[in-house]
């Protein structure tokens, strides 16, 4: 089911177009990625969808009952409440539609915010405040989640945890729009439809990780082979009879062969496949 449709949307700021004739739709169980350089208009587009900016032309159709959760690029609000109080108050704004209190507590722990529960939000670092803003956007259990540069200032581990939460929301019927300068392969792996905002136009990118070329690598195990590290482990599809098979994005083929060779695995063969 479609959650929102953006039709021929244009917005000018001070005589300059932020974006022109933008059109796309977001459905349930879908994650959309919007890539674009700094100043390309990603934030303005998300602001328009979140109803904070009035577009000059075009329209956005929201399916009745759509509730938007928004993580802005920069939140100027001065929050002197503690993390627990702020997130609980934010959760309660959505009443019985929000995530349950225990779920929120679980998410707080999952994102590593537990040590800061009694600290006023204003005193936290920028990265931690971003995580709290992310949880504040998610706490209302929105069916449309707009995330503007959500992974800025975050460690790889936190990014993975945030992606897992986003995936979980998607699996529960929400639609998610991620905007960022450039998403890496790990993030692209979660994105269903990828768009590029360039020269004020939004165009669909055909090759996200879900559709891009991948390659199958086969390695032989021998007595000198050492334990495989976690970052490699996630790509392994088969590990039996002294052979390891892995499917990886084509872009990291060479570096992966080098890494495995360093770990004393014997490179056997490579085969390009389309996902």
């Amino acid at each position, binding site marked *: 089911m479609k959650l929102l449709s953006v039709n021929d949307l244009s917005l000018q700021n001070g005589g300059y177009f932020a974006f022109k004739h933008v059109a796309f739709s977001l459905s349930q169980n879908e994650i959309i990625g919007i890539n674009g350089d700094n100043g390309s208009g990603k934030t303005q587009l998300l602001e328009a969808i*979140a*109803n*904070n900016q009035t577009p000059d032309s075009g329209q956005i159709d929201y399916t009745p009952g759509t509730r938007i959760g928004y993580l802005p690029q920069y939140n*100027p*609000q*001065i929050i002197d409440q503690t993390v627990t109080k702020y997130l609980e*108050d*934010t959760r309660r*704004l959505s009443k019985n539609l929000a995530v349950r209190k225990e779920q929120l507590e679980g998410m707080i722990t999952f994102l590593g915010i537990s040590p800061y529960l009694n600290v006023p939000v204003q005193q936290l670092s920028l990265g931690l405040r971003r995580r709290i803003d992310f949880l*504040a956007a998610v706490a209302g259990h929105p069916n449309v989640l707009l995330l503007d540069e959500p992974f800025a200032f975050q460690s790889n581990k936190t990014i993975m945890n945030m992606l897992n939460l986003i995936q979980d929301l998607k699996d529960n019927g929400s639609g998610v729009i991620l905007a960022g300068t450039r998403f890496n392969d790990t993030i692209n792996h979660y994105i269903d439809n990828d768009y590029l905002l360039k020269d004020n136009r939004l165009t669909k990118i055909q090759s996200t990780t879900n559709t891009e070329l991948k390659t199958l690598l086969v390695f032989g195990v021998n007595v000198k082979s050492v334990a495989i590290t976690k970052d490699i482990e996630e790509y392994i599809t088969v590990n039996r009879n002294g052979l390891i098979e892995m499917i990886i994005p084509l872009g990291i083929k060479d570096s992966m062969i080098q890494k495995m060779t360093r770990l004393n695995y014997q490179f056997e063969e490579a085969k390009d496949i389309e996902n």
Partner: protein
Amino acid sequence: MKIKVLMRSYLKLFFQDFLYLTMLFAIIIFGFVADQLLDISSVKKFSLLMIEMFFLALFSMMNAYHNDSQQNEYLKQKVNSYWWDALAQFLVALIVNIFSGILIFIFSQIFNRNILLDVSGILTLISVGMLGTGIATLFKTQWYRHQSLGQIGTLVFVLLALSGSTVGLLNVVEWILPPLSKLITTVQTEDSITRLLPLAGQTFIYADILYIISGFLYHENKKN
């Protein structure tokens, strides 16, 4: 919950940069020392306190809206309720004006055992405060979309509030003017603060009407 979150936020905006508190304490000190400093009667001093209360309410509410425009965009997006927001603005203005009115009157040295005088004085100050916050609310667009319009509107309303009863030309339309100057001229001619009670009621209703008009005015703008 929405009203609680919004009211907490607006109260914080009032107090966060000390403009309100600094002005309030300056007025309290003026009320405290005006007798010795200027050798004026209670009625004259009360006239001055009404003008000060009006500007205290106007400036502090304008400052709160300015802070609101800078900080609260995303809070409002989360709350997503225009009317709760408008109600929170009104209630916070009422609370702050009650607080200011009581403090200013108590420390003005006019406060005495005559309860009618005390009640009249406090209610008049509160209603004048509501008039100031009402004007700031009506023209809050100066911090959002229409800066010049909001500033000009505020200036015109302040001028009318202060001069309405003293300009002969405006006598015909006096009933639509902000009744501050009427309060001041009445207290001077009647020489009694208790006689201001009906006018205080009129001023409070006038302020409420300003809030209602701005409520609908900005609601339409939001739709567009």
